[in-house]
């Protein structure tokens, strides 16, 4: 934790001056930035901010102040990267912050987030290939990128990043979850009901079959087994 505050050497050409004056990131319209290449520089600052945003959202309980400040900074950077394009006004946020916003919204909806995470975990355990459709608004932010405003070309950078969040990040999130509850025999009927769907290859069309009734049943089973389950041990 202390390493966060430690000075660290830059790995690029700036190694000679570890904390050189950072003029390159300044607002392109600023008078003092004469020869800097703002677009390229801002892109790495943009990447850094996106990374920070994802890292913040991956926390089990994100620091709201940190999150809000990073999101607002990201909006500023983004606004400066495409100043001429027809950007929608801030209140109806463009696609990149909408990724953040969707994730923000989901971080607040605690129960649906727990549900989403439980079902995600279930999908890892039982071999389901995708999260159930009703949670589409939270699970696949990557899909919303496809419908992004075409003017924000730099947001292609965001695509693989969000993919990482879904595929690798969540997996990493649940590494320490005690999955012994899923070995319980109670799961057998539920999994048999769900498994044939994706594996038969019906794709998205079949997913809606996992409808409200199935979800309710799943939740009942989950809550029921959780009641039986002992609380997690002391090792955290």
């Amino acid at each position: 934790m202390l390493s966060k505050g430690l000075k660290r050497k830059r790995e690029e050409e700036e190694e000679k001056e570890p904390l050189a004056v950072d003029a390159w990131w300044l607002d392109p319209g600023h008078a003092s930035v004469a020869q800097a290449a703002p677009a390229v520089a801002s892109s790495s600052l943009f990447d850094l901010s996106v990374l920070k945003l994802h890292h913040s959202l991956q926390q089990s309980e994100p620091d709201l102040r940190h999150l809000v400040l990073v999101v607002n900074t990201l909006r500023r950077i983004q606004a400066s990267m495409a100043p001429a394009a027809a950007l929608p006004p801030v209140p109806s946020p463009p696609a990149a912050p909408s990724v953040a916003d969707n994730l923000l919204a989901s971080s607040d909806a605690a129960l649906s987030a727990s549900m989403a995470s439980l079902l995600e975990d279930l999908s890892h355990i039982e071999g389901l290939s995708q999260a159930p459709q009703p949670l589409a608004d939270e699970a696949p932010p990557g899909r919303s990128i496809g419908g992004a405003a075409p003017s924000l070309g730099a947001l292609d950078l965001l695509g693989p990043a969000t993919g990482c969040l879904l595929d690798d990040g969540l997996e990493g999130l649940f590494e320490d979850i005690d999955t012994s509850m899923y070995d319980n025999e109670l799961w057998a009927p539920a999994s048999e009901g769900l498994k044939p769907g994706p594996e038969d290859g019906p794709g998205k069309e079949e997913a809606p079959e996992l409808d409200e009734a199935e979800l309710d049943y799943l939740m009942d089973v989950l809550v029921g087994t959780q009641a039986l389950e002992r609380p997690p041990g002391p090792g955290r």
Partner: protein
Amino acid sequence: MVLQPSERHYRDWDHRRLGPWCSPTGSPAPLSCETGCGEGSWILVCRLLVPTQVSLLSMEEDIDTRKINNSFLRDHSYATEADIISTVEFNHTGELLATGDKGGRVVIFQREQESKNQVHRRGEYNVYSTFQSHEPEFDYLKSLEIEEKINKIRWLPQQNAAYFLLSTNDKTVKLWKVSERDKRPEGYNLKDEEGRLRDPATITTLRVPVLRPMDLMVEATPRRVFANAHTYHINSISVNSDYETYMSADDLRINLWNFEITNQSFNIVDIKPANMEELTEVITAAEFHPHHCNTFVYSSSKGTIRLCDMRASALCDRHTKFFEEPEDPSNRSFFSEIISSISDVKFSHSGRYIMTRDYLTVKVWDLNMENRPIETYQVHDYLRSKLCSLYENDCIFDKFECVWNGSDSVIMTGSYNNFFRMFDRNTKRDVTLEASRENSKPRAILKPRKVCVGGKRRKDEISVDSLDFSKKILHTAWHPSENIIAVAATNNLYIFQDKVN
């Protein structure tokens, strides 16, 4: 949690002193704040290693194995993360100094009594009481761990022989009573002196138990637990001047509590948007006015301060006053908002001013002027050109606190490299001092430090690139009436005193 300090007699200590901070309580020491913060006048009184003292003194107690392991494994040269001090606060007389740490412990220090034999020891603080205020919790519904770190401690004004303080972690506020016991009953009929039960058949006479003096014992007991009122992380608590209510503030809401009622609180500020996607601002700090029990302020991550009057409406979403300084166009950058985020807000003792701390400056505002501060002090402006690196390593999000001295003439705040800064509002002089082990000889005079910005570095100066950003002074406290300050550096608590004192 019971701690037995060495023999000490408190009978002649007047516990019943009341009165607001601003009027002297009759103590012989003059109000020495007028001397200001001239260079070279601060000396180290003592450096307290909080966890070491705790471990040594509590070896005999029956405590949980985690503490025992810590005391055996702890190396004096480095601190475990649980020992990091997270809050420091003097009580209203300055007799007591409380610290909270990341491990959920509260340690209270008491000022050494002035005695004719050891005049030079006056001003030293020794451990008075220590207890585990908060434990780590697990929220099973959300699968979330709730940290036990103490975010804030606030003292209640003393109204009887016992001391009361509020301590809070991210979710729960607790009211603790700290009291002394110097008598115990002796002469039970059914128990012997060691507490073992006696066989009733052996008892032939009856006696009345009597209270006899004993070695002083200090006990801390939780009197109230105010829980389940905050969805987000509590960042501030503030005791109202009516001494009956207090408020707790989290990122989006502020609640008003009555000390006697733990199952209800009033929500007085709510800035949560209907749609969380529209969230752009959070509450960062809040405080009640020192004299007007209907007035409070809260600061935001966008660098604004709102003053609210609870008489206006039940939900104080509409402010009475709005303090914001327009952005300086020459300093505009991507990080403008982050560095404008206010990390602490404090009323002056007089109630006429508020002081705010953002990343690079401390500002003093007159309550009667909303459009700009009346004073701005640069804490470490040399960092302005390093903001990108500080953003990268997250240091730009550090939350520094700020404090007033007793007469509101000097303000103090922390910085990096274990530096802390004092600004004299009258003389406009400022000084940078360092809280470090190297200068740790008792009564050693602190030498002012200087950061070299560019060009030739003088012998005693330190260059910006050599600053240690892991050594940050976030928490400091100033004695309410004397020039005694407490500075927390990781797990060390430094107490400095004005040499004139």
